[in-house]
């Protein structure tokens, strides 16, 4: 989902940066508040961030014969909520843009928007929705991480299509092309991310009950 450095026209790059910036600022404040009010969860937050760092470094082969990588932001999103995860995702993207020439600074806003805003919110929304219809925690976590991953790649496709609409078929035609590049490859990888995230949550439920209680997690289903 990384849009390469310079591969969005200046106006689009600026637009996504302006759109993403307030989310990052609010997120930074939320992280500061979390660390101050619930310092016991600091280590879990670091662990969730590290989970995203590790997963987004892994380029995995997909059944489509291409390769791509998970995002890893689903775990932190269901545990801490999407607001906190925006800063974490932004730091991961910045790391990759500066040290790996993967993504870029001009496209950072767009990449933050897809991986650190839309992905976490989609994951969190799916998690709450599945829980509210009394879905089990593992099912809710699996669907959250899987669909959060897909939402990120769909957003990237939309961003590229807006910048580079097809000459004849316009935005819709371009969207179809970009989605067919990303989505087919991404579906098996999204499932992988979903399953790994369930494993992580299972381990947390086994060994980190006290931290989860501080976060009042998992939320009780709405009656």
């Amino acid at each position, binding site marked *: 989902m990384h849009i390469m450095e*310079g591969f969005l026209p*200046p106006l689009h790059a600026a637009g996504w940066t302006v759109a993403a910036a307030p989310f990052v600022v609010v997120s930074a404040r939320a992280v500061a508040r979390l660390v101050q009010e619930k310092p016991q969860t600091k280590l879990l937050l670091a662990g969730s961030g590290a*989970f995203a760092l590790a997963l987004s470094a892994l380029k995995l082969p997909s059944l489509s014969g*291409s390769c791509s990588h998970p995002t890893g932001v689903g775990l932190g999103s269901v545990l801490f909520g999407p607001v906190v995860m925006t800063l974490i995702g932004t730091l991961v993207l910045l790391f990759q843009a500066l*040290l*790996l020439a993967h993504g*870029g600074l001009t496209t950072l806003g767009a990449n933050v928007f897809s991986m650190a805003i839309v992905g976490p919110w989609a994951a969190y929304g799916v998690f709450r929705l599945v829980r509210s219809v009394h879905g089990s925690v593992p099912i809710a976590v699996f669907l959250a991480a899987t669909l959060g991953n897909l939402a990120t790649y769909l957003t990237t496709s939309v961003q*590229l299509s807006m910048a*580079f609409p097809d000459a004849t078929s316009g935005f819709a035609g371009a969207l179809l092309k970009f989605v067919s590049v990303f989505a087919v490859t*991404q579906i098996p990888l999204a499932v992988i991310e979903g399953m790994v995230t369930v494993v992580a949550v299972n381990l947390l439920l086994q060994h980190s009950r006290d931290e989860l209680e501080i976060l009042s997690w998992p939320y009780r289903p709405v009656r």
Partner: protein
Amino acid sequence: MKQSNSLLLLAVAALIAAPLLLPIEEAEFSGTDQQAKRLVEVSAPDYKPWAQPLWSPPSAEMESLLFALQAALGAGIVGFYVGYRRGRHTRPDRS
């Protein structure tokens, strides 16, 4: 729960191995980020990227080193966390 974790990890391993073992036509395993970049170059041949990365890894080997370091850093912290919590959990008297 332990059993379901093992099964899940087994399924993950199978999903990662399957593309490499199955005879998939035209399997180059190129990255989708690069494919999207190429798609842009085809559909907008006049477009010139207006910014370059400040620094790029000098070779593919150096790039994979940095990716491995990123994964190792992440996995290391995750491993520390899990080990720390597990230790505390199984030896509550020493927490």
